[in-house]
């Protein structure tokens, strides 16, 4: 197109006055705008949603049907034992998306665009972690339904079940901030994806997620007992009433898993939220 295009008459050079004023109101508005933008993305590129839906279904089915027949957990049914582990693994992996998405926005110059706007300095990060929480929530619902279909039952009542689900999502939210920081530092979405798989696979597998920790070789058992993912899995398992009878608890994290997860989440947020905001304020493309 070479036709001359006249931009709207700029009769007055006064920049438009904001309609939303006040630190708190703009903080909410900006956070919501970025969340809305991220969620529109999910709507437009359904491959992401399909991945978020199909992967959990696949994991639940694979583990419960393939290994369910041979893995015997003393004092529990394997499907009941497994579910908390699958949930934890899926939400932890789901959080890596925050990092890849930050790196992608940086690469496409969108972070530069955001940073030249008078928006709240934490809004992009708030929006990012919010929308990834939504995505993880969707995965969670799908997994729960699939779990029910393969015979999983929680036995501690609905409030306790909901508390378990809430705890898993809370952890995934806090972990999103860690990944968001990584995304801004590493800056290439592909590297984030590869690196996180290299780290998260061992962390989630050398835990009590898929087999009891005491069934692991001694060095791995020690690692598993101190692994924060184990505390998360144990907390959810306890709250779902899926813990195998006669289980030995020999570390603090396994003895008091719910408290441990709360401490962990608090620490992650206290450390990584300020680090993220600081990093964001000095991040620019290339």
């Amino acid at each position, binding site marked *: 197109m070479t036709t001359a295009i006249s931009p709207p008459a700029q009769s007055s050079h006064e920049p438009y006055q*904001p309609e939303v004023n006040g630190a708190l109101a703009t903080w909410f508005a900006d956070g919501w705008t970025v969340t809305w933008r991220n969620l529109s993305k999910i709507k437009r590129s359904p491959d992401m949603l399909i991945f978020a839906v199909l992967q959990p279904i696949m994991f639940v089915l694979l583990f419960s049907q393939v290994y369910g027949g041979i893995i015997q957990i003393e004092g529990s049914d394997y499907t009941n034992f497994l579910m908390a582990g699958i949930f934890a693994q899926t939400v932890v992996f789901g959080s890596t998306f925050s990092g890849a998405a930050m790196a992608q926005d940086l690469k496409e110059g969108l972070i530069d665009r955001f*940073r030249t706007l008078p928006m709240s300095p934490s809004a992009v990060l708030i929006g990012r972690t919010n929308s990834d929480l939504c995505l993880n929530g969707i995965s969670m619902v799908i997994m729960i339904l699939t779990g029910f279909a393969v015979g999983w039952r929680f036995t501690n009542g609905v409030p306790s079940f909901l508390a378990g689900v809430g705890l898993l999502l809370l952890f995934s939210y806090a972990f999103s901030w860690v990944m968001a920081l990584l995304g801004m530092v590493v800056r290439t979405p592909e590297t984030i994806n590869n690196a996180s798989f290299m780290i998260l696979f061992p962390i989630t597998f050398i835990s009590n997620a898929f087999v009891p920790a005491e069934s692991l070789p001694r060095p791995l058992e020690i690692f598993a007992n101190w692994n924060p993912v184990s505390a998360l899995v144990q907390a959810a398992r306890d709250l779902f009433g899926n813990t195998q009878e006669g289980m030995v608890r020999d570390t603090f994290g396994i003895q008091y898993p719910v408290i441990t997860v709360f401490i962990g989440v608090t620490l992650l947020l206290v450390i990584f939220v300020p680090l993220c905001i600081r990093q964001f304020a000095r*991040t620019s493309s290339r």
Partner: protein
Amino acid sequence: MPIIEARGLTKTYPSKSGTVHALSGLDLDVPEGTVKGLLGPNGAGKTTTVKVLNTLIRPDSGTATVDGINVLSNPQGVRRIIGASGQYAAVDENLTGLENLEMVGRLYHLGIKRSRVRAAELIEAFGLTDAGSRPVKGFSGGMRRRIDLAGALVNNPRILFLDEPTTGLDPRSRIGLWETINDLVKGGTTVLLTTQYLEEADYLADHISVIDSGRVIASGTSDELKAQIGGHRVVVSLVRDTDSDAARSVLAHYGTADPTVSDDRRQLDVTVDEGPVALQRVLADLDSQGVALHDAGMRRPTLDDVFLTLTGHRAEATEEDNDSTQDQEISA
């Protein structure tokens, strides 16, 4: 008082091959309502200058104000009155053109309703009405650039920063975008733009600052800069490159400076005082020496000549230059 004022800006980056001095004491003044072009090769410091002024990076030292607001102490104040468009069209692929602009409006805190009205207004003004409600994913490079530029106009900014606005566009889209920017400037918006294209600076800018190695090495209108190196240039194009040395000495004889010789040794040119006379004599001498010519002529100096005279190297970097300067372009 100039609407953009920068004094003594410095910025260094660590890099693999040591410290890169992206800015080394850069001063800049842009009067209100004018278009200033920052001209220079890759790695000269153009992008870093713009990024300091639009609050994306903090300089190591120096001061800068935009419309009287200090960039370092009140970046949010600056952000409210500027529009900025980066080197790459920063648009969300998954949003439609309208949604992209609505998002920007909402982040300027215009409110959802007004942001939508403004988005529709800009989409229409930029001739994208038909495409406005489709995701940007399917847009051409020129359309993305338009959306990006429209995004920088959402808040009716007093000052517009454009970093290489037409890089990567085909010639038709480039000219289209130039016309758009020109129309915009008629409304009185102050524009600071960077470019590697000499004709772009020539076409758009009232004033040009030539930047090299992180500082301004010359400023003025395009004509003033050309006048600085003066005169005409005599240009000859040889049939045989074996005649190159002979032709070179003829040109050197009539020129006021050393002739430049192209890599294939067949294009030569030199600055002369009296163009027509010099051209006649050059042709006569070459003819008497039996040098065969494809072409010969006289031209006014271009900004490329200005750059060559001022810095000793061409503005439009060759492929190898590009590679060696690439890692100097990192900026965070």
